């Protein structure tokens, strides 16, 4: 079932991390408003292959907005024009017939381009490895209901934990700061009693790793929150700053 929209795409093409990239233009016809944005790319890629051209490489996996793998910068906004969704949840009904759409990869020093629209986000994994956990070995946990947690705190921890690690916050930030991502994990664990024993070392280690990865500083413009597909709140950054200051003042390790 094809549709009746005609779209012009300007897509970033870059052979590999060392090559110079450029925008290439593609016309895509018969676009259905029910197609997702990535399905439109599928259609284009099928055509490119049948024309014996190399298709556009882009990251994607679950296509239901939860794995955090998709990452396109669409018309100057991470995950496109609509709020609260990822690129894979964006549908062509959000565009008009005849639109020209510019699609680029995330732009950040800490996220080098691998190919076309694919970037390397392993810096996020290294930040988590630096302290984004509770040190509890398997098998020695107490009964789950021995820890009572107020519903408000549990809900707030959950809201912070909903981060999908896509990197839109970094892409949206003029400084390419990762504060929203890091603060979401720091907050989740700081809000829970299980997270208390390590709270100081956690925030110090994670921030140190964030800086080492080359992410920029936070200047509180709030672009990250505005573009976050999961609505992660700026409050988390405030909480992390509080935790960080507290840890710096009190930590015996400093």
């Amino acid at each position, binding site marked *: 079932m094809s549709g009746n929209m005609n779209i012009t795409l300007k897509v970033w093409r870059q*052979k590999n991390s060392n090559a110079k990239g450029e925008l290439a233009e593609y016309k895509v016809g018969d676009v*259905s408003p029910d197609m997702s944005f990535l399905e439109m790319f599928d259609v284009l890629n099928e055509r490119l292959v049948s024309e014996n051209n190399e298709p556009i490489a882009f990251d994607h996996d*679950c296509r239901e907005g939860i794995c955090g793998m998709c990452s396109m910068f669409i018309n100057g906004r991470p995950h496109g024009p609509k709020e609260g969704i990822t690129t894979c949840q964006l549908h062509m009904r959000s565009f008009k017939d005849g639109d020209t759409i510019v699609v680029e990869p995330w732009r950040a020093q800490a996220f080098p381009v691998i190919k076309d629209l694919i970037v390397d986000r392993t810096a996020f*994994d290294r930040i988590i490895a630096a302290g984004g956990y509770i040190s509890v070995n398997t098998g020695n946990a107490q009964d*789950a209901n021995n820890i009572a947690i107020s519903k408000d705190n*549990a809900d707030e921890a959950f809201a912070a934990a909903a981060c999908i690690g896509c990197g839109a916050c970094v892409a949206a930030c003029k400084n390419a700061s990762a504060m929203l991502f890091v603060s979401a994990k720091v907050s989740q*664990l700081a809000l829970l009693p299980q997270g208390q024993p390590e709270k100081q070392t956690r925030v110090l280690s994670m921030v140190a790793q964030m800086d080492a990865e080359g992410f920029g500083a936070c200047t509180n413009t709030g672009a990250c929150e505005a573009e976050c597909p999961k609505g992660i709140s700026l409050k988390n950054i405030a909480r992390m700053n509080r935790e960080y200051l507290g840890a710096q003042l009190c930590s015996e390790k400093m």
Partner: protein
Amino acid sequence: MSKLDAKIPEGSIDQKWTKYKSSVALVNPANKRNLEIIIVGSGLAGASAAAALAELGYKVKVFYFQDSPRRAHSIAAQGGINAAKNYTNDGDSVHRLFYDTIKGGDYRAREGNVHRLAEVSNNIIDQCVAQGVPFAREYGGLLSNRSFGGTQVERTFYAAGQTGQQLLLGAYSAMQRQVGSGKIESFSRHEMLDIVMIDGKCRGIIARDLVTGKLERHFGHSVLLCTGGYGNVFFLSTNAMGSNATAVWKAHKKGAYFGNPCFTQIHPTCIPVSGDHQSKLTLMSESLRNDGRIWVPKLKEDAEAIRTGKKRAVQLSEEERDYYLERRYPAFGNLVPRDVASRAAKERCDAGYGVNKTGEAVYLDFTFNTKRYGRTEATKKGIHNPSEDEIVRLGKDVIKEKYGNLFDMYKQITGVDPYEEPMQIYPAVHYTMGGLWVDYNLMTTVPGLYALGEANFSDHGANRLGASALMQGLADGYFVIPYTIGAYLSKEIAVKAIPTDHEAFVEAEKNVQERIDKLLNIKGTKTVDHFHKKLGKIMWDKCGMGRNEKHLKEAIDEIRALRAEFWKDLRVTGTADDLNPELEKAGRVADFLELGELMCMDAVNRNESCGGHFREEYQTEEGEAKRDDDNFAYVATWEYKGGENNFELHKEELIYENIKIAQRSYK
């Protein structure tokens, strides 16, 4: 045909695991440091196994094809995770969870494994809470529960509609902690393309670095495949785009038997297909069936009017609606197991009662329970005689709190607001109960090669109950493999790491390279997706919700023809020494084209209906699945014998000592 030994420990069912744990051979800490374990896949099973084994001191390497281990498709599981905690005081117990799982699986799962699963279910919840997984809680601060299909207790723990995400992030954090401490080496954007056999044992893998295209050899004293299911054989499924069967299929071709390949779960509540461009299907969590009622119009004329846009669902009165699950299954109603609910939806749509353009959709309607919640809220707030509008408004807030993210997701995909119009849903491929055959230790028929989570066949029989996949993935990774791997590795402590210039590694790498070259050199005219979609259509039409001998035999012929065409006319652009998604897809589809045939062969062989395997020739007068326990109470286990479509069937007889095998009834 040989007899398979599942190595179930002796003793009464509730003592088997306890006794096993206290008698299984151990590996001392100094030796653990010298033993290397390769884990393929970083979902719930893989990440939890990686964390638990690294904590014990083993040297662990983890491989995953995504950019981060947190992307694995476990992340997308919505509804919840079962455990026999009985926090709700409604009569749950380990035995009841065991019983429900065996019955839900239509008496085609192994008692010993399932009982162990039920036993460790409680430890999983404890472990996850200790890690900081933010499960839903009540106002008193304790954990909240809800119901899932196929049970009459509330034993499902959840985190809104994102339970899989929260559990995976817990396991991922535990794994990253070990990465940070240097005990796990993590390989992102790496795909396993073969296992390496030395002296009859699995000793490593060949992996391709997907960024550079370079093939790599990795040694391990043992290898764990935690690579998920193979639902993407059908092209359209709720699986992620990258979910694939390549790892298990390569293992199968190197000697690992494949158990019950035809057991596929079709999930009843997915968003219907919207057009030919469709790349995947999206699940609407089973938890919605707690409060959503499923119906179609009673009259065909009404269904027709709705299909052509002349009527809307909300215009039909209660008397004009057929709540067919409540009608057919009064005891379980809308919470019948998935296979039963899916077939019932298909039956209504086939009979002409479908409610969307394609005629393949039924309603999932929250109006009744929205109003029920609204009235309770009004009472709580002391509002007497609330207006209808007020009731709906108050009720919507409750529904939003419980299912908000799912409602948003539905609206995003369909453009329709489910708070105003009932959802339209239809069954879709979701999970595969079949997988690599494993014994009680989770070891495949290849020594040293294990399969965990959805990749193995062991716990769900012919139909998996909702909220049990997360339970099994984490049970296998956190609580089973750390014990059972000792039984094997305790005998391997004298084996030094084998250098990867060993001829077996060289040979395996050469074979992988040749296959890649072959795919690139066909230089035909058709894309990978062209073949994948064709395969998917054959599988869905002939090996889907309803199957019969004639169609299955046709499907086998069609798949063979398609496979031949694939190897003649495929076009893969790009090169092997570069990031090349087309090449990745081509390798996976080539494997699906073989596995699909085995699924059909298995479905032809099983002359009965059970769980998700519904053979149209074998049904009761009321259209229910008709099992044949005299002839088919076994695990159909297939051995690859070399060459094309050459498989031999072995049977593992299923013995029920603790549960009386009976006709499954949810009436």
